[in-house]
């Protein structure tokens, strides 16, 4: 009787140990950070890890800071249209991440602010840019 009790207790502690290990593994996978925990209520914490696309973070922050609605250039829309195989391109991911980051600044079809992969656009001035994507103010 006593032996059974000890066996169960050992199994219990082994399971408990593995449970803790598994939780630690999960904390590593979800990029847990104590600094973030203590700032869980602060504005925009975790934006870099969430958006995970440096160009989208930089351009998004620029648009939010300057209170600008925006649109994508025509060619860029075509390029990033959803494909039937479900796989997104790099530009497609940028588009989605920019939309997620900039909200409440929205896509506005009448906006004269255009986002493009091209360094220069006709009748437009480049007002901001990263290495791969540019913000243009058009006439």
């Amino acid at each position, binding site marked *: 009787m006593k032996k059974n009790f000890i066996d*169960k207790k050992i*199994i*219990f502690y082994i*399971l*408990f140990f*593995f*449970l803790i290990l*598994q*939780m630690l593994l*999960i*904390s590593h*996978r*979800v*990029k*847990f*950070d*104590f600094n*973030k*925990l203590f*700032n*869980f*209520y*602060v*504005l*925009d*914490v*975790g*934006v870099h*890890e*969430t*958006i*995970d696309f440096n160009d989208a973070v930089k351009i998004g922050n620029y648009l939010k800071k300057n209170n600008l609605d925006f649109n994508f250039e025509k060619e860029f829309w075509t390029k990033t249209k*959803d494909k*039937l*195989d*479900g*796989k997104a391109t790099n530009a497609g991911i940028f588009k*989605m991440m920019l*939309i*997620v980051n900039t*909200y*409440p600044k*929205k*896509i506005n079809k009448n906006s004269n602010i255009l986002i493009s992969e091209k360094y220069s656009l006709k009748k437009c001035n480049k007002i901001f840019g990263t290495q791969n994507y540019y913000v243009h103010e058009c006439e």
Partner: protein
Amino acid sequence: MFMNVNNFFNLKNIYKTFIFLKLTILFNYYLWLINLDLVLIYYIVVLIIIVLIYLMFILYRFDRILFLFLIFCTILSLGSPTIYWDAKTIWMFHAKKIFFDNSLEYIKYDYGNFFFNSYPILGPTLAASLGKIVGQWNYLYPKFSILIISIPSIIFLYSLIHEKINKILFLFIITLILERRLIIGEMDAAISLYFVSSIFILIKILDIQKDLKKRLQKNNINKNYLYFLIFLNLSFMLLLKKEGLVYFVIIFISLTVMTFINNELFNKSYKKLFIFFACAFLNYVIWKLYIDYIPINNINFHPAVTNIFNLDFIEIIKKIFNIKNFLLISGSIYINKFSLITLTLCIFLISSYVLPNKKYIKINKNIFLFLFFIILIYLIFIYTVYQLTSWEINFHLSSSADRLMMPLYLLICFSSIYFSEKSRVVKNYSKKA
């Protein structure tokens, strides 16, 4: 003063607390839907937080392991960014839109329609309400709302197990099967927990355990609480994710089939259950009407299945019986670590404790048949979805197979733990007798 742990979980108070918590979450959802009053939403969120603190307080007094587990999950949820694709682009983005618009305007204007604006929004509305209390948006705390929604189901399932070793095994299995999904802001873990807990509330209602009646009387639990719980559970399942409708249908068909098998046990509760199923389904109908009322040019169906509507009947049949894809799907859903964990646990527990106890199997043969139907219909659903996919099958399988199979893995694991414990209890009881 201090109650025994098992007594605490059998008390009607815990059911009342679950019902109250779920009702407030549902109320919060409807407040957003009818766009009534933001002030009322503040009160509702404060109420939800108070109920949660109360739950944590009683867990601290009566079950420290579960208390620590939930606190650990809360810490992980609040201290990690929203890094997973569906969480950041669908669920938490819907929440962000609701938070900033103070309404469901984004659905009306179908903003960013590639983010599936027609998806149900029980989770996002709670996240947006939490945002109203915090006062500003970030990428950490909103996903805590999904954990809040999952907590009643975790506690309910946990309360069905009585041995300490099985309790810790159950929590370990949660971390193995649901893994990080419990805290990352996606709905898959929550819907899996609601799927399993709905089935086990039904098992309780169907009076499968011979001593249930006695226990209900002893603890003064009105059986109506369980009916109300199944209504809320099914409502949550339907409003969490689109797959909820499929799970709802799976449970309903299994229940109906069991009733047709002329089982006195099932016949007794079927009529009443049917009413509660219909009431729960009403929540889905309201959401569907809301979406259809707005001229949303969006995807009422996932892009992976839109191709079906362009195929004729013969092409669909050809696709369904494609052997090569059948083998690919089987490989993907049976040969992975989750399946291995599930099968190992199931085979070990069932063969060691349930199968040798013939008397127990005989008493519960109806409930095993009920579970068998659920698993069978679930697998038919999985095979059909992947056979008919518009996407490249390997890509679709690698991106979603483990998520879609998660409720089934959890169901098999939990059933194995639950029935192995029950069969041992029955065996020991009959030995003593």
